[in-house]
């Protein structure tokens, strides 16, 4: 069995209904778990960019990329290791407002973690943190001791160190 590694997949696609189904089926068929998935606009008008995080062998990721690129509405797919990308995820905590005033420790945690208070009202406050997955994990552990009303975190978003020349590619597709 080859060593599994964490890969960030970046996919540039046409923005179409049904493509999510088509892409996710590629992972499902091969029994590969998607750790996180994010779909959003990209730097190019009307082109979507997907960021998918998986834990697989390099042999597997190459084949998966081949299958993704084969889809008609996929412009280009890439895979990168952790060192090759700059990545972040984002999270929100909803916490009782009383704690903010009563627990000095919470204020320290907020300062130390570079988290940002999004809103405060008399019942609750909302804390936002962007960073590495491990930083979010740490903040979660620290705050959970005081009680968290709600917690939600995003999938990974990433940019690569190397260029991904989609605009140029689109020109060659469509001279």
């Amino acid at each position: 069995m080859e060593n599994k590694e964490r890969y960030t997949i970046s996919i540039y696609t046409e923005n179409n209904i049904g493509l999510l189904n088509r892409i996710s089926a590629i992972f499902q068929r091969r029994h590969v778990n998607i750790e996180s998935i994010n779909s959003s606009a990209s730097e190019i008008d009307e082109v979507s960019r997907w960021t998918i995080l998986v834990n697989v062998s390099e042999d597997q990721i190459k084949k998966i990329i081949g299958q993704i690129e084969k889809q008609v509405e996929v412009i280009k797919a890439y895979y990168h290791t952790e060192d090759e990308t700059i990545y972040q995820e984002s999270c929100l905590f909803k916490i009782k407002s009383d704690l903010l005033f009563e627990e000095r420790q919470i204020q320290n945690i907020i300062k130390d973690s570079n988290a940002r208070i999004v809103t405060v009202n008399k019942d609750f406050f909302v804390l936002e943190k962007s960073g590495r997955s491990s930083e979010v994990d740490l903040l979660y552990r620290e705050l959970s001791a005081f009680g968290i009303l709600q917690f939600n975190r995003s999938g990974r978003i990433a940019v690569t160190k190397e260029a991904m020349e989609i605009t140029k590619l689109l020109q060659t597709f469509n001279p």
Partner: protein
Amino acid sequence: MKEQTALKQAPLTKDTERLSGAEAIIKCFLAEGVDTIFGYPGGAIMPFYDKLYHYQDQLKHILTRHEQGATHAAQGYARISNKVGVAVATSGPGATNLITGLADAMIDSTPMVCITGQVASHLLGTDAFQETDIVGISTPVTKWNAQITKASDIPTVLAKAFYIAQSGRPGPVLIDITKNAQFEELDFAYAKCHSIRSYQPVPETDSSSLQAAAELINAAQKPMIVWGQGVILGEAEKEFKAVVEKTGIPAAWTILGASALPTSHPLNVGMVGMHGNYAPNMLTNECDVLIAIGMRFDDRVTGDLKRYAKQAKVIHFEIDPAEVHKNVFADVPVLGDVKNTLAAIMPLLQERKHDEWHQNFKKLHAIEIEKVIKEDLEPSSEGLTMAEVIAQVNKESEGKAAIVSDVGQHQMAACRYAQFQYTRSNITSGGLGTMGFALPAAIGAKLAAPDREVVAVIGDGGYQMTIQELGTIFQTKVPVKILVLNNEFLGMVRQWQQLFFDKRYASTEMTNPDFVKIAEGYQIPAKKVTRREELAQSIKEMMEAKTSYFLEVCVEKEANVFPMIPTGASVSECRLE
């Protein structure tokens, strides 16, 4: 709809006309050169059928007896003609009945466009009568699919559908069209689709790969070619033959590659794979350069990958980049359309004969003749063999017939023993192994190529999976020859039970009806043969019939197909008994 932005719009050639969506679908078909469609009406597709009524002189509709039959007929049509096969069905069960045919076309790269009716768009997602999420269901078994909810999208989306189905590596496309979109009107104008910005059907060929491939081929002492359906799909038979003849390399075929080079060609060394010929299987593990052309190293071809051609340098001519290194690592991948890459490599290749290397094939083939083929073709036992039936068909058709086979032992016999003279003569369900494929596929093939003799070779099991299509033959009078090889067993499964499950014949014995009477019920001339003396004359009668004809041949009940590479074994562990 975003899709339109992805289309390169060709200039409209004529003014628009005001039409209903339903009529627009028909106009799109006609613009794409479609002359025959296969289908089955129902509620959500009725507006289309209503308009079709007025176009019967231009567009032939074949009413199959089940939507699965429509897909296989469309496949048979496509496989023999290289045109896009078209199947039409209603929503709900009509649509879900297309799935097997779509999956078959997907894995065997058959160009097909399926149109399904869908409930009106205001009912989508309400669990309306005969509503099913066919776009969701068909996604993994289509090259592309889409839903149309307004009439104005019909021309662009259908143009895209036909383009995708037949470009690059072909495949099936499903377009789901809501009933309201069929009723609504649009200003119709049709422009064929020629490119989609996110889609590169044929990858660019790296000229250094051609150089590297040529160097390997020229230096090889024991090269071997394995070709697949890519040669046929790329219409590259001529270029392929030129390469084979110039290099003198022994060439073997996968089941779907059969007939691209005549069976009798001196450089054709037979079929590879589980029930392929002994020599090419054994020598796969002895060759020094393996040249794969338009094939995808299916597990039925390779056996155990860890022991597949490990000694050889592999050159892979392939149109689909996802197939390169998928199962077998290619030392030299040559991406591109084989029609172009084979032509481009020709001048780089040296003329060779490889006489000594050919002797190895001849020696091993002699062993196969001795141990398998002789007994298959000239049996010492009383029971008829499948092989001698196929040999009789060869004789009567002089190798000109297109053989449409189903799935199982008879399929292996048909592929092993048919003497193909012309390309596109072997139509069978390869990748999916769909029992029930042959009868409807033969109907489609005969309609696409009325001048060719089309013989459906089917087992007694598969025959009963789509036997209702006799109704289609009866109604349309399409002169298909039906040859059922009846061993009263699901023979291939029984063979495995015998070899690997201690002869526990669980649910493989068939108690069959009187097939002759059934055929006669459809007024198809029918005959049953049980004895060798009757065989030649009966096949002759069948082949000479101007109408459709049903011939049942009762063959040996417990015969096995050999050679055989058991699952998990290596190609060089090919068994002869």
